[in-house]
C-alpha cells in the first residue's frame, strides 16, 4: 500500500505556488486582459510550433500505451483466440462475466485481495505516522537526516531483491528461524506458510515503504504552526499534551486524506510483489485479482474470462479512486477548517 502518488507533494511547499498565484491574480486584476489572449489560433500554432513538437512524443506515448489498449478490453466480450485475432474471434456478450462470477478462483482472489489490503490498512498505515512523529521529535538535524536516509533507501529496492532478501532472513536458513530455535519456539517457514502470507506481504511492504511514507507526514508536521507549541508550553502544557492537542490535530487532515485515498485503492495489491511469491504458498492463499488475470489469461489462455476480471477490477477501481478523491476533498477541506479553529 504505497501512498498515492498524487499526494506526495509536501504541503509546506504548497504555500509558495499558491501565494505566487495570488500575487499574479491580483496583478492581473488591475491590468487589462494579458496580450496572449488576443493571439489568433493560427498565430499561436505558428508561434508555438516548437512547443507543440516538444509535447508530441509524450502525447503519442500516452495515447499508444494508455488509451489505445483500453479498446483491447473488448476481448472481455469475445471468445478470444490469439490465432483468430480481435476481428474473427466470436462475440459472446456477457458470457465471460457470468463465467467469472461462477468461478470459485475469482472469489478466492477477491477475498485474498481484500484480506491483504485490509491488513495493510490496519498494520501498515499507522507505521509511517508513528515514525514521522518520532523523527519530528528528534532535535538533532544530523541524526534525523541520517535516519531519514536509512529508512528511505528500501523504497528504491526492487521486489525481486526484496523477496530474495526476505528469503535469506525468514527462510529455512535465515536468522529468524535460528532465533526461534534458540528461544525454544517451533520454527516455521514464513515464506511458504499460506496462513501467514497476508502478514508476510504486509511486513515486506512495511520494510520497503514505511520510511518513504513518512515524507508526506513530515512535511505536514513542519507545516504545523510552531508558535502554537511555544504558546502551549508557556501555558504549561507538557510534551504529551502538546502532541495530543497540537501535533495530532495538526496532521489529522492529511491522515484522513491518505486513509480515504488508501480505501480507494483497496482492490490493488502490489502486483510484482505477489506474482513473485504466489507459487510459494499456492493460489489458494496467494492469488489476488491481478495475478488471477495474469495466470488465467496470459499463462492459461482463458483470455476472455481473465480480461473480464481485469475490466471489472479496473472499472470498480476507477470509481473507488474517483469517489475517494471526492470524499477526501470534502474531508480534507473540513479537516483543514477544523484545525484553523484551534488557532
Amino acid at each position, binding site marked *: 500500500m504505497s501512498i498515492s*502518488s498524487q499526494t*506526495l*507533494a*509536501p504541503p509546506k*511547499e*504548497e504555500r*509558495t*505556488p499558491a501565494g*505566487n498565484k495570488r500575487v499574479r491574480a491580483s496583478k492581473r486584476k488591475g491590468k487589462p486582459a494579458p496580450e496572449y489572449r488576443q493571439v489568433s*489560433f493560427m498565430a499561436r*500554432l505558428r508561434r*508555438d510550433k*516548437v*512547443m507543440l*513538437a*516538444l*509535447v508530441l*512524443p*509524450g502525447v503519442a*506515448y*500516452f495515447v*499508444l*500505451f*494508455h*488509451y489505445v*489498449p*483500453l479498446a*483491447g*478490453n473488448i476481448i472481455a466480450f469475445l471468445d478470444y483466440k490469439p490465432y483468430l485475432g480481435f476481428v474473427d474471434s466470436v462475440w459472446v456478450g456477457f458470457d465471460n462475466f457470468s463465467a467469472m462470477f461462477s468461478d470459485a478462483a475469482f472469489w478466492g482472489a477477491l477475498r485474498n485481495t481484500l484480506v491483504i489490503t485490509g491488513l495493510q490498512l490496519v498494520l501498515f498505515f499507522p507505521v509511517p505516522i508513528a515514525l514521522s512523529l518520532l523523527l519530528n*521529535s*528528534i*532535535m538533532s*538535524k544530523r541524526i534525523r*537526516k541520517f*535516519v531519514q536516509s*536509512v*529508512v*528511505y*533507501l528500501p523504497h*528504491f*529496492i*526492487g*521486489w*525481486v*531483491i526484496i523477496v*530474495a*532478501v526476505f528469503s*535469506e532472513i525468514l527462510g529455512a*536458513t*535465515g*536468522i529468524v528461524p535460528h532465533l526461534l530455535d534458540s528461544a525454544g519456539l517451533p520454527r516455521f517457514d514464513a515464506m511458504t506458510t499460506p496462513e501467514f502470507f497476508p502478514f508476510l506481504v504486509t511486513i515486506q511492504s512495511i*520494510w520497503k515503504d514505511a520510511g518513504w511514507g513518512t515524507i508526506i507526514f513530515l512535511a505536514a508536521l513542519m507545516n504545523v504552526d*510552531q508558535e502554537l507549541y511555544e504558546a502551549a*508550553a508557556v501555558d504549561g502544557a*507538557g510534551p504529551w499534551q502538546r502532541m495530543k492537542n497540537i501535533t495530532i490535530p495538526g496532521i489529522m487532515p492529511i491522515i484522513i486524506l491518505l486513509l480515504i485515498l488508501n480505501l480507494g485503492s483497496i482492490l490493488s495489491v502490489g502486483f510484482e510483489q505477489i506474482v*513473485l511469491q504466489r507459487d510459494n504458498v499456492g493460489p489458494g492463499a496467494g492469488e489476488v485479482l491481478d495475478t488471477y488475470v495474469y495466470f488465467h489469461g*496470459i499463462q492459461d489462455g482463458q483470455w476472455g474470462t481473465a480480461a473480464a476480471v481485469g475490466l471489472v477490477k*479496473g472499472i470498480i*477501481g*476507477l470509481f473507488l479512486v474517483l469517489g475517494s478523491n471526492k470524499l477526501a476533498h470534502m474531508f480534507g477541506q473540513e479537516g483543514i477548517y477544523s484545525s484553523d479553529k484551534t488557532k
Partner: protein
Amino acid sequence: MTRLSSTAVAPRLSIRDRIRRGNERPVWMEKPKPTTQVVKAVALIVICFLAIYPLFAVLATSLSSQAEIAANNGLVVFPKAPTLDAYRTIFSGGVVTDALVRSLLITVIGTTLSIAVTVAMAYGLTRRDLVGGKFFLMLALFTMLFSPGIIPSFLMVKEMGLMNSYAALVLPTLMSAFNLVVVRSFFMNMPQELFEAAKIDGAGDFRILIQMVLPLSKGVIAVVGLFYGVGYWNAFFNAMLYMDSDKWPLSMILRQYVLLGQPMGDAVAEIAVPSQAIQMAVVVVSLIPVVIVFPFLQKFFTKGVLTGAIKG
C-alpha cells in the same frame, strides 16, 4: 544558538557544545527526561537496524565460503574468512555478466529517453495558451486514475511487434504522469521574467529550454531520473512477459536463479543449484547501483523538489 556564537570564537568546541550546536531546541522547550531520550535512542537504533540488517545479512552470506555456510547451518552473521569466490564465479563470464550489461544499458538508455520525453512535454505544457495544451495535460493526468489492464497492455505490445525486442522493456513504461507533473510544476515556478527577457533578446523556445531551463533544473531532473532509473533497473515483469531467456535483464536472472532456484547455465554449470553465496552475490550485484546512486540524490527529497506537484 546566539549563546554559542561566543564559543565559536574559540577554535575548539567541547564535545558537549558540538552536540548542542547540532540541536535546534527552541528556548521554551523543556529538556527531555533521560528515560525519554533513552527510549527514543533505542527506537531509532532498532529502526535503523531493521532497515539495514537484511541487506547486511545478504552481503555477509555472499562473502562466506560454502564450507562456512554449511558449518553454521546456513546462517553466517559475520564471515570469519571473507572470500570473493562467489563474485569471481558470477563474473567469470556467462549469464550474470551478460544480464548485468543488458540491465545497465536498458537502464541508461531508458532513463535518458524518459527524461527527454518528460522534460520536453513538461516544458511544452508550460505555455499557457498552447493550442490543445489543456487537453494534452488532462490526457496525461487521467492515466493516473486508470490502467488499461494487464491483458490489453500485453496484446498492445504484441500487436506492435515488440515481442522479444528491448523496446518492449522501455516503451510501455516510458513516462509517468506523476513525473511529468513534478517537472512541469517545477518549470512553472521558475521566474518567468527570465525567459521573457531571453525571448526579447531573440532566443527561441528550444534554445531557452536547453540553455536556461535545463541548467536551472538539475535537482528536479535528478529526482525524476532516479525514479525512472530505479524503475527500469528493478523491472522484471515486462521482461517476464515479453522476452526470451537469452535477453533477460538482471532482475529476471535474479528471479529465475535465486527465487526459483533453477540451475544457472554456462559459467557455473558445475553447480547444479547455485550455492547460497552465489545467489546472494547476485542479489548484492543488483543492489549496488541503487545503493551507490541513492546517497547522491536523496538530499533532493528533503529539499522538496517535489514542489507543488499536487497542484497539477
